[in-house]
């Protein structure tokens, strides 16, 4: 015995007879026995085909309206579709009834009414295997077991068909659509329609079809009505239309003939000439086609749209030209300021200077005018600095610029409008701490220097520890007391103030209004009215007043007018200490008039020994820079830089001023120098040497009767006498010290003591520095030459006598190769220039 109730005996041990006893069917396809079965098939019955498919009149045996529900399954009609079904069983899935999921609602109750569950199975389910259906539709006399199985299946099928999973969404949708379309028919209409169709079309309708129809929905009108009271309502939109009703009627007929070999287009067996059914089918087909077309069109639209979107998506995140321009304009609108020249100062001035340079070099400069300008005026007084203007693509650029200017202007104006109208006061701080200024235009300074550390000119030191606080006040009261010299920090502070003052002056000068016309004719040529000229003149006057005011401020800040003895060094001289001071000297001088420049130069001459470059001038040395330590080297280089800067920015300008004055003034200057200078000290420095040499040169030229723009008339006799006197004093002051002024000599003296013999001189080994030394010697030789040119009589002899040793040594060193040929050449040239003035020659020394 088996626990589960099956035979535990292995198959091979089972009795062979057991198989034969089983009452289950034994299939032996492919064997001889099966061949016999094939022979048993009923091949007859084809004679009724004409009745089914042809247009022969058919007997009334299928007029189901007269039959009781149970009788509808006439054996004659049942047999015929059976054959059809054998060939087209798998078509169930593709019938239109399935496609539309037709009349779900109506078929379900029908099963109860007709008590033919098989019809329900067939009409509502497409998933059923064909064999089963065949069994259901087969003759009503199968084996008992089969029948039982069939009824079981039938009872279970409705439930299965009601499962939503069994159908696709499309099917349900179509079903709902069909239901809605069906509603318009009233029951009466349906009934009458049925009757009419039956009487008129009955002969054409195949019996199987008629049977399906009966099973499908209209076997008993009363029962039907009782079961579905809701169907009895008329659908206002479509109700009453005969055509429609017919169509609706026809549909279930077609849809639900399950054994008919239908394809979705229609049964081929039906002749096209048939009246009611084909029209409704066509209509339906047309509807279907239209639906398909609509769907296709919609699908096509959707696809095109999707393609377009996909195509555009390639450029997602890429800005269009319009976007770029928009952003450019926003950026540009941020750059617009009230004073484009000030905010774009560097680019503006740089391009102006470049323009000047180009003009000076004779190169074609970009055409001036509104387009050549480096500032785009946006609104009055506002603008946008565009920096250096270039000449490429001018026309194109102009157009773009013009357009852009307009747009930027609009943006700026809108922003201003908004600023005015927006109630910012109430909203201030609502979003936290707001920056008042845009960061792009005014970045937050990383380094903030408090201005209290800077001293103004008239500021008096507050600290009581410094006695200068009191003395300066006293000095101001009495005008005689001395003041502490400016500290380095103060000097730097004041220099910065000076720079600001200079910038101010330069800025005002840049805004010079156009010159008014000089006379009537000019005025007419310029197309101006007298009123405009008047305004222009007034503006010009205001402008010159502004310039004058700024220049006066600058003059005050230079402190040239401070008493000469107020401090040592004088404040103005102190300002010339740093290289920065040298630079500003050359800048301020062009803003002052003649008198002020002269005042400045005289002060400079008077206080010349106080100058940093003179006082702390490096003494010449034989030590080569290779032997110097790094700090010493740096200090030496710093001194050289300072001298270079002083020479370029101060001495040269001083010489320029000196050259504008007459002999009397030059004589006065020389006297001033003699009075105030310690000649040996000052002339040991290159700046002093250069200054005296140029004074002498100027005096010599003027004394010889030369005239120039500054001196239209030759000097008077009194002036010449004054000059001669001044020169004699200078010469006699210089004669004893002259030979010791040479840097090479001084270097020698520093190394070996003041009394070292010229013959025992030691030359520096460094070629470069040796040459430099010889060049510096040459400057002293230059002074000697100037003196020799002016000296007369005995003075010339004294001059040569004083310099005799130096001349001889220099000559010999060059001749005997004590130095390199290059240095020898320089030395010979130096001596030759001096001797030449005296009417002698180097060759005479031999």
């Amino acid at each position, binding site marked *: 015995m088996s626990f589960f109730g099956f035979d535990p005996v292995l198959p091979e041990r089972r009795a062979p007879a057991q198989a034969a006893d089983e009452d289950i069917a034994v299939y032996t396809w492919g064997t001889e026995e099966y061949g016999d079965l094939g022979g048993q098939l009923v091949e007859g019955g084809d004679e009724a085909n004409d009745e089914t498919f042809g247009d022969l009149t058919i007997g009334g045996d299928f007029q189901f309206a007269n039959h009781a529900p149970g009788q509808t399954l006439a054996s004659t009609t049942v047999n015929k579709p059976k054959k059809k079904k054998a060939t087209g069983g798998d078509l169930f899935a593709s019938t239109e009834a399935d496609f539309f999921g037709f009349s779900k609602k109506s078929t379900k109750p029908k099963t109860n009414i007709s008590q033919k569950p098989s019809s329900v199975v067939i009409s509502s389910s497409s998933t059923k295997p064909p064999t089963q259906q065949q069994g259901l539709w087969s003759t009503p006399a199968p084996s008992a077991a089969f029948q039982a199985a069939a009824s079981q299946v039938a009872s279970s099928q409705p439930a299965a068909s009601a499962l939503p999973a069994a159908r696709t969404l499309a099917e349900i949708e179509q079903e709902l659509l069909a239901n809605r379309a069906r509603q318009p028919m009233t029951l009466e209409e349906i009934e009458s329609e049925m009757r009419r169709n039956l009487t008129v079309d009955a002969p054409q309708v195949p019996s199987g079809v008629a049977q399906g129809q009966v099973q499908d929905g209209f076997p008993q009108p009363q029962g039907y009505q009782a079961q579905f009271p809701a169907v009895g309502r008329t659908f206002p939109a479509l109700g009453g239309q005969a055509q429609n009703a017919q169509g609706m009627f026809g549909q279930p007929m077609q849809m639900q003939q399950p054994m008919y070999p239908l394809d979705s287009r229609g049964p081929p067996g039906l002749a096209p000439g048939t009246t009611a059914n084909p029209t409704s089918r066509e209509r339906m087909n047309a509807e279907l086609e239209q639906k398909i077309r609509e769907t296709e069109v919609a699908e096509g639209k959707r696809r095109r749209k999707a393609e377009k979107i996909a195509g555009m998506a390639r450029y997602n995140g890429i800005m269009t030209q319009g976007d770029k321009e928009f952003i450019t304009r926003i950026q540009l609108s941020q750059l617009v300021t009230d004073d484009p020249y*000030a905010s*774009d*100062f560097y680019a*503006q*001035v740089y391009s102006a200077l470049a323009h000047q340079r180009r003009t000076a070099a004779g190169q074609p400069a970009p055409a001036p005018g509104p387009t050549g300008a480096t500032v785009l005026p946006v609104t009055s007084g506002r603008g946008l600095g565009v920096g250096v203007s*270039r000449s490429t693509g001018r026309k194109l650029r102009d157009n773009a610029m013009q357009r852009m200017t307009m747009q930027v202007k609009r943006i700026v104006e809108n922003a201003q409008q908004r600023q005015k109208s927006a109630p910012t006061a109430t909203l201030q701080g609502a979003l936290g701490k707001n920056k008042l200024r845009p960061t792009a235009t005014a970045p937050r300074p990383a380094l903030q220097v408090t*201005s209290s550390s800077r001293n103004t000119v008239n500021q008096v030191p507050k600290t009581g520890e410094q006695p200068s606080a009191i003395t300066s006040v006293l000095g101001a009261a009495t005008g005689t007391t001395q003041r502490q010299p400016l500290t380095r920090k103060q000097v730097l502070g004041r220099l910065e103030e000076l*720079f*600001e003052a200079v*910038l101010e002056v330069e800025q005002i000068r840049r805004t010079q209004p156009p010159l008014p016309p000089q006379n009537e004719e000019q005025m007419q040529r310029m197309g101006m009215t007298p009123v405009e000229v008047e305004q222009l003149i007034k503006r010009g006057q205001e402008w010159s007043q502004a310039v004058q005011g700024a220049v006066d401020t600058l003059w005050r800040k230079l402190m040239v007018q401070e008493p000469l003895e107020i401090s040592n060094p004088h404040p103005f001289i102190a300002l010339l200490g740093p290289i920065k001071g040298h630079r500003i000297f050359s800048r301020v001088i062009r803003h002052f008039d003649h008198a002020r420049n002269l005042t400045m130069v005289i002060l400079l001459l008077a206080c010349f020994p106080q100058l940093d470059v003179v006082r702390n001038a490096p003494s010449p040395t034989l030590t080569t820079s290779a032997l110097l330590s790094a700090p010493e080297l740096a200090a030496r280089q710093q001194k050289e830089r300072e001298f270079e800067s002083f020479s370029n920015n101060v001495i040269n300008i001083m010489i320029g001023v000196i050259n504008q004055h007459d002999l009397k003034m030059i004589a006065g200057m020389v006297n001033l120098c003699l009075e105030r200078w310690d000649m040996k000290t000052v002339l040991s420095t290159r700046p002093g040497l250069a200054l005296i040499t140029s004074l002498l040169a100027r005096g010599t030229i003027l004394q010889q009767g030369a005239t120039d723009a500054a001196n239209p008339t030759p000097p008077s006799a009194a002036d010449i006498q004054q000059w001669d006197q001044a020169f004699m004093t200078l010469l006699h002051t210089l004669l004893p010290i002259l030979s010791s002024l040479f840097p090479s000599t001084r270097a020698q003296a520093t190394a070996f003591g003041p009394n070292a013999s010229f013959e025992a001189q030691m030359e520096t080994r460094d070629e470069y520095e040796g040459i430099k030394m010889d060049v510096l010697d040459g400057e002293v030789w230059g002074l000697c030459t100037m003196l020799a040119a002016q000296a007369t009589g005995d003075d010339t002899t004294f001059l040569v006598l004083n310099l005799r040793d130096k001349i001889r040594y220099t000559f010999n060193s060059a001749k005997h190769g004590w130095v390199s040929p290059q240095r020898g050449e320089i030395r010979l040239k130096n001596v030759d220039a001096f001797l030449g003035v005296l009417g002698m020659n180097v060759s005479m020394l031999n």
Partner: protein
Amino acid sequence: MLMFSVFKTLTEQVVTVELKNDLCVMGTLKSVDQFLNIRLDNIKMSVKNCFIRGSVVRYVQIPRTAVDTTLLEDATRREAQEGKK
């Protein structure tokens, strides 16, 4: 604004931009904006030109001759003055 103004005058000059990631790009300065974003042309890389966001720049090496130091000093003073106001 000062540096923007300076860089405006440096267009068409060959500059070397040192980035904060220690990358150096040498090329012709085509344009610059107020954020000091830089467009370079003729760079020695797999690409011919590039756009550099200003915030990633560490240094820009510019030709000495293309800068007017005195003017730059003045411009700095002016900006400082404006800041004080």
